[in-house]
């Protein structure tokens, strides 16, 4: 016992004090778009993307790209293949959004139209503010504490990263965030995996067992759009078509810092990712 105590004290504080730092050079980040003009008739990115997350709109000789981060599995192939530098790597862990549309990047000036074309629908922005009746102050009730129930419906790497975000290095618990054993104790439902047919009913029942106010956080690309599994007979198209999702954390799997970022966005303490076009290399 004393030996263990000695060991624990000697390793010192392991927590990274400033959350969500800039990633190092080796980290393979999500793609981003620049204003470098995409070559008309190219389509290299569209052909190579495993999930079909990229669309090219070639209108009268000028090509525009739309890239859905909610369907991106971070394989890096589009970044490798793009000959014009329109698709580049973005080194940030802060990729969580509070709107499905904000995950769609496009170089086109007609943003709303392209986003609708990519998503096939507009989802209502479900603000992370509290609810109805006497509690309806329009304020976020979860700023100091958030209790989460995790429901896994996929391959388990997103679950592993959620588990890691609670370890001493990332220390999600310092923000008042706990993983709870029952939906009855939960403020937020973290969904991982694409939610195939056999998990749809259990998931909805779990959500139904949560008292209001309650949030839904889609952790990982599968939970947002179904990822590689989208469109199959198992109807594994993500949580977004089944539950009202408030926060979207893309990634395959998202880094623990990205999960911390998503939770802090839910708590109103960090800014969500906003779609932008970076300046391209000349």
């Amino acid at each position, binding site marked *: 016992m004393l*030996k*263990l*105590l000695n*060991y*624990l004290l000697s*390793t010192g504080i*392991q927590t990274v004090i400033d959350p969500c730092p800039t990633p190092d050079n*080796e*980290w*393979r980040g999500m793609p981003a778009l620049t204003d470098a003009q995409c070559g008309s008739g190219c389509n290299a990115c569209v052909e190579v993307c*495993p*999930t079909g997350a990229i669309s090219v709109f070639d209108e009268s000789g000028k090509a525009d790209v739309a890239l859905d981060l909610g369907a991106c*599995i*971070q*394989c*890096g*192939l589009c970044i490798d293949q793009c000959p014009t530098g329109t698709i580049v790597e973005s080194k940030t862990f802060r990729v969580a959004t509070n709107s499905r549309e904000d995950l769609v990047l496009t170089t086109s000036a007609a943003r709303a139209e392209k986003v609708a074309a990519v998503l096939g629908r507009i989802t209502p922005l479900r603000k992370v503010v509290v609810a109805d009746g006497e509690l309806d102050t329009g304020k976020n009730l979860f700023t100091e504490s958030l209790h989460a129930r*995790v*429901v*896994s*419906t*996929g*391959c*388990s*790497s997103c*679950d*592993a*990263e*959620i*588990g*890691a975000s609670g*370890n*001493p*290095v990332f220390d999600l618990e310092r923000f008042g965030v706990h*993983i709870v*054993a*029952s939906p009855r104790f939960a403020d937020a439902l973290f969904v991982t*995996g*694409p939610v*195939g*047919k*056999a*998990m*749809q*009913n*259990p*998931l909805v029942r*779990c959500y139904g067992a949560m008292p209001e106010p309650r949030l839904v956080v889609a952790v990982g690309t*599968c939970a947002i759009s179904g*990822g*590689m*599994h989208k469109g*199959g*007979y*198992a109807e*594994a198209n993500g949580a977004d078509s089944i539950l009202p999702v408030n926060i979207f954390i893309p990634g*395959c*799997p998202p*880094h623990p810092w990205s999960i911390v970022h998503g939770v802090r966005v839910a708590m109103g303490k960090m800014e969500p990712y906003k779609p932008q076009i970076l300046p391209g290399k000349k």
Partner: protein
Amino acid sequence: MKLEKKIVEIGNLSQSIRSWMEGPSGRRLGLLTSIDGGQLATLMLDPQKSVVEYWESPLKADSYRSLTLMVPQAHWHERVLWDMFGITPEGHPRMKHVLLHDVYPPDFFPLRKIPFFDSKGFSKDRSFNFLEVRGEGVYEIPVGPIHAGVIEPGHFRFSCFGETILNLELKLGYVHRGVEKRLTELPWQKGRFLAEAAASDTAAANALAHAVALESIMGIEPTATAQHFRTLALEMERLAMHIIDLAGMGTDTGYLGFAQNMSRLRGKALGLAHNLSGSRFLRAFILPGGVRNVDTSVLAKIKKNARELKAELKPLIGFLHESQIARERMEIASISRSLANEFGMVGIVARACGIDYDCRQSFPHGTYPNFAPPVTVGLKGDIYSRAQVRTGEIFTSLDVIDAILENIADGPTMVSVPEQLPADTYGVGIVEAFRGELIHFVATDSDGKIVRYNINDPSHNNWTAVSIAIRDNLIADFPLCNKSLALSYSGNDL
């Protein structure tokens, strides 16, 4: 490796399998499936000679006599045959679905491509009736699919008498996503992403088995440099997962000081993977033809970090083994060697029972003939033996990583890969994933398209171990027992 098809009459299949397995020790049934519903496709393995045989048994009816009573290793495979192809193994002692629940129609067989032989089609529905234990004072505890912790879903139905578990039955299939069907629809170059996503704590092993299977039928060989990087990746994955599994076992004995530090060190092991590939889970790193480009300037950093990790792990893991309380909690839930053999268990679970089967020795590919570590074997088949096997493998993996880093030659990481797969071929990739023997079996049609892709995750063979190990133990010991087996739901369900 590329396989030659050998036709075995369906009536002789049971006896042929039995004779094969009664041969020199270690021989086993690799997997039993179908290509399109018109035949049985069996892989027989001889680990001592590194031999794999592919036997095809054409069917003339929608059913055949079940092999399970003669060959218990086949029991789970036969249930999946029914689930996915609508082929009935008549006389199967526990015929229930594994993968498709009753949310799917009873006549839905996603991998079947040919019409039914009998016009009456199919009569059994997809309801799942749990085995009942009767007696005064016996009650049932249902657990799942959603579990209290952060873990994949599955249903456990316990029949208990007081605190003691009389029987445990599993109902899996909750995370069935249709991976194998999708692998026949995607262009083959994109299949690796789906193979990785099948069970992505095994992403590197799945990508490697996929690459090895396809390379064997394409007849290409990756460069020595790529082979070294692949071995590094596989061992890093093994290291990280063994660390977190030991941490989980520590948590379930209440040993949190140990467990939280192990979780931190697992982050360092993932850091090695991050340095090598840009992804903590080695995603999109291994592909047919080689590996993604590696910036060789990181190799010195990886070597230094791996050595520091080893120095930190030694004292910390020692705490688990030195704790009398933890050890007493863990010296339960044993599986006998004979049952492990009978049910075809693989990997850590089998090695903890004294079965020395490790694909790095038995089916070496890539650099393994030179770098395969000694096989770590346990003695009693209990939870503590499984902890011992993991501990041994953590340190042998670190040794392999160090040895590889001393020996990596500079060179290209990719060879050129043909556009098309060859027609009418069968290939297999066998890899020792961190849980055990992982088999990817691929068959192409006359156009060179993939007509069947079967992923046989080690968990597919091992889930029965949960029911066997926990029998006659206390319900309170179940979480620890389950963690000691640490099986994959998604790898089984696909």
